[in-house]
């Protein structure tokens, strides 16, 4: 057993998986805890009565005008209106959608505003992170309130300038108007007066009726689109600072191994190499692993030096993980009772009384996040301060680990948020920031630490593999009466990488339900990966429900709707927005109707339906697929003989209820992207481990889906007006795999129970 500690890694993972489902405030405070001194100082500032409780930026006076800076989100000056996007942009679109909320409530002209990524300031913005599909729901009301307040102050400023009652005034396109007289004045011309006004009480501020929204719910293109198509520097990897050097950090290929010896003096003599040194690591597998740092004048020279570097590793403490051994052990454990997590009714009695039963052993491989921009961080240590440029999803914890690495206080660390070339959960963890800070601490120059793709895969925090022995039954009416989910997971650092609970589907919907869990010893770090937990549980439970429908000789859609039952709330759920079976049934019915469920289909073509609730989103998907005939027999990754069959996914129909849509273009893009990501992942993505090493470390063996296999995707949204908005970065992912799996069964009678399904012979046309 390794002596490495996993502090931070497991907490973050749990926060973004099951704890966030319960809205655990204590854990949230723990993960996002402020440095104590900084906390006291900043809250002191709030106590002194700063405008709206926001600490920055302060209004700046010029010769004859003053900037209107009512809060951290809005600045109106002679240049125009600038809106600050507080949360990290990882491709989920929040650099556009969050300022849209501000512009709506402010009545600012979207075509004229400028959007800037904000600095990190917990007092001004609260927790600034990208994870758990939280950016929209956690900011929605806060941004509206702040923007409506600013708007009220601009109206008041016009009222004072014109000496009229503010009730006679309205706003539109960054102007205050008096309709009765036709008078207009721009926000810019009101900035100086507005800046001098007292902040009205929050009770006096009236938010817009959503029916009056002009911008929200429309299609708005991304604020960085033009910069992207011109190839302008936006990403962490694009950062260049004066006198910057390029760093590479070589760690043991078996995670946790330490450096015995290395040809450091020889490497120091190589062209362009500035310095080479060993770092011992700090024992925390989530921060700094042992390794050798190389600093050079260019990335290529650093990479050449890395190639020539010869390290003798001490692997006593290193991972010994073996996927093939784990699979054998899991198959054995699946036949035994595991630790009981939830038990309602009497599962055994239901099985005895049943008319038909089903049983299946489901398994899924490990996968890696593989954001296309490999991890990197630029760091400049200046003795009494540290400046960072990092593509991170959790800038707050990046600042804390960097402080920890350099002996500074978090208040001495400045972090510039860079656009992230993909996140998917990987950049919730800041080990690359820890390394950059530790290397910069020993460097004369600022350094840009660059991970290679191989580093990015090998030292990922993986989506854990897992195994489920599923058993269930139906009664004489074909109703699902018994359900047992026996889950075998992995336990890095002794804590399960993932957990089932009584709340996992169909918890609360089946009379006799038993959930069990066991865990295998493991060393590689496992973590939150787009829609954690749900991204694999959905496949298992929605396919197994389809198995039961088949056992009952009933229509899958009819059985799914019957299990959902009467409209009611189930559990507290995420941020207090639990699953509601009525919302669930509505999206299921809509997806089925739009997909043409039940229509005549060609031979070897089938439809599958699946529903999943995650991150407060209710999502149903219907896939239409064709399966080709049986081809040759080949060996899969596990050395088993499988028959190859061609799969064509023609179309995926998605119905989502995530409350009101902020940016329709962004929402549709998330739906399309989630479907393609989920299809790519279920088809052929797998990381296997032997001898403590990941066996796939680049895209030659980790084959992400290519463009030509893309299905048609139809996105439909339900907004009843009863619920607040929630995020769409994750919840569309989970139902795709079971919808396709069930469609494969409908098309050809083969039940897929393994992810990726290439393990069962399927490949995409």
């Amino acid at each position, binding site marked *: 057993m390794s002596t490495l500690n996993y502090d931070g890694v497991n907490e973050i993972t749990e926060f973004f998986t099951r704890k966030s489902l319960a809205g655990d405030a204590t854990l949230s405070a723990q993960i996002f805890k402020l440095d104590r001194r900084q906390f006291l100082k900043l809250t002191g500032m709030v106590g002194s009565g700063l405008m709206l409780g926001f600490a920055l930026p302060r209004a700046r006076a010029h010769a004859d005008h003053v900037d209107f800076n009512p809060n951290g989100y809005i600045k109106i000056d002679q240049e125009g209106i600038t809106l600050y996007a507080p949360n990290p942009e990882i491709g989920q679109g929040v650099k556009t959608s969050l300022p849209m909320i501000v512009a709506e409530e402010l009545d600012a002209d979207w075509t004229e505003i400028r959007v800037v990524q904000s600095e990190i300031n917990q007092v001004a913005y609260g927790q600034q992170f990208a994870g758990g599909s939280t950016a929209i729901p956690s900011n929605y009301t806060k941004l509206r309130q702040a923007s409506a307040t600013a708007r009220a102050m601009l109206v008041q400023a016009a009222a004072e300038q014109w000496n009229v009652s503010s009730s006679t005034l309205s706003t539109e396109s960054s102007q205050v108007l008096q309709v009765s007289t036709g008078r207009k004045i721009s926000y810019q011309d009101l900035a100086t007066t507005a800046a001098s006004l007292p902040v009205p009480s929050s009770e006096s501020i009236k938010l817009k009726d959503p029916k009056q929204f002009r911008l929200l719910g429309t299609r708005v293109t991304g604020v960085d689109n033009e910069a992207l*198509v011109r*190839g302008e*520097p936006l990403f962490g990897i694009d950062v260049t600072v004066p006198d910057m050097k390029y760093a590479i950090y070589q760690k043991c290929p078996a995670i946790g191994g330490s450096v015995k010896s290395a040809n450091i003096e020889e490497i120091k003599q190589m062209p362009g190499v500035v310095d080479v040194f060993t770092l011992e690591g700090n024992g925390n597998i989530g921060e700094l692993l042992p390794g050798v740092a190389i600093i050079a004048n*260019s*990335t290529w020279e650093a990479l050449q030096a890395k190639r020539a570097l010869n390290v003798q590793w001490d692997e006593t403490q290193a991972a010994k993980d073996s996927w093939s051994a784990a699979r054998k052990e899991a198959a054995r454990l699946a036949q035994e009772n595991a630790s009981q997590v939830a038990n309602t009714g009497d599962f055994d009695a239901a099985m005895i009384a049943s008319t038909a039963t089903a049983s299946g052993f489901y398994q899924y491989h490990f996968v890696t996040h593989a954001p296309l*921009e490999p991890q990197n961080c630029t760091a400049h240590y200046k003795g009494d301060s540290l400046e960072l440029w990092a593509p991170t999803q959790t800038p707050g914890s990046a600042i804390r680990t960097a402080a920890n690495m350099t002996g500074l206080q978090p208040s001495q660390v400045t972090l510039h948020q860079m656009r992230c070339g993909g996140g998917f959960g990987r950049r919730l963890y800041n080990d690359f920031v820890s390394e950059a800070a530790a290397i910069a601490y020993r460097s004369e120059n600022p350094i840009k630490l660059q991970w290679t793709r191989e580093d990015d895969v090998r030292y990922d925090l993986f989506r854990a593999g897992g195994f489920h022995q599923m058993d269930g039954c139906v009664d004489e009416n074909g109703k699902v009466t018994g359900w047992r989910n026996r889950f075998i997971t992995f336990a890095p650092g002794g804590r399960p990488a993932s957990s089932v609970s009584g709340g996992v589907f169909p918890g609360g919907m089946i009379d006799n339900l038993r959930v069990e869990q066991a865990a295998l010893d493991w060393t590689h770090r496992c973590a939150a990966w787009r829609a954690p937990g749900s991204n694999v549980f959905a496949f298992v439970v929605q396919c197994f429900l389809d198995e039961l429908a088949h056992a009952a000789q009933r229509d899958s859609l009819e059985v799914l709707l019957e299990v959902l039952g009467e409209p009611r709330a189930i559990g507290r759920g995420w941020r207090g927005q639990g699953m509601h079976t009525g919302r669930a049934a509505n999206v299921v019915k809509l997806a089925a109707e739009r997909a043409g469920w039940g229509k005549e289909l060609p031979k070897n073509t089938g439809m599958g339906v699946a529903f999943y609730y995650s991150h407060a989103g209710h999502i149903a998907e219907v896939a239409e697929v064709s399966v080709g005939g049986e081809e040759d027999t080949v060996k899969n990754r596990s050395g088993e003989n499988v028959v190859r069959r061609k799969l064509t996914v023609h179309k995926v129909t998605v119905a989502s209820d995530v409350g009101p849509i902020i940016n329709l273009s962004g929402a549709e*893009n998330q739906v*399309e992207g989630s479907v*393609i990501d989920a299809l790519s992942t279920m088809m052929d993505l797998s990381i296997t481990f032997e001898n403590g090493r990941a066996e796939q470390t680049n895209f030659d063996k980790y084959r992400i889906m*290519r463009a030509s296999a893309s299905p048609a995707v139809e996105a439909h949204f339900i907004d009843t007006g009863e619920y607040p908005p929630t995020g769409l970065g994750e919840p569309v992912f989970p139902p795709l795999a079971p919808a396709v799996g069930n469609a494969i069964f409908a098309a050809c009678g083969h039940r897929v129970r393994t992810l990726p399904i290439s393990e069962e012979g399927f490949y995409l046309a």
Partner: protein
Amino acid sequence: MKINVNGTTHELGEINPQTPLLWVLRDHLSLVGTKYGCGISQCGACTVLVDGEVMKSCLYPVSAVGDAQVTTIEGVAAKDGTLTPLQQAWIDLDVAQCGYCQAGQIISAEALMRKNPTPSDDEIDAAMNPNLCRCGTYIRIRNAIKRVADSNKSGQNGG
């Protein structure tokens, strides 16, 4: 050594001739629009044009460029900044999510359209399959290309 990028000749001074063009562009010339994704010519994030032909710059030694004209994403728009129809379609159809692969995608699409202004769906797939998009924006990429192809068919972009 000298190379011509986007119409400008750059003196590289003393440089290892084996240095991949990708790192010359990024580290030596500060043209960071071309991206590093895999380093083994699998993902297409580093795609550039060399005399109009698509080239994965991550494995292409700078010494192989010779007198050829290199075009990177920074050189796709006209000198006066006017965007190409493809770049405009990418903006209008809101193609990008994280955006990291899009420089390579646009380069591949530009190369396709310059040779074949009205490609079929299969021709689009063949040209674009070398470029991975981790966010899964393939549908919009295809739509953006088809929009330009359609206007080429109707002569709006001068055929």
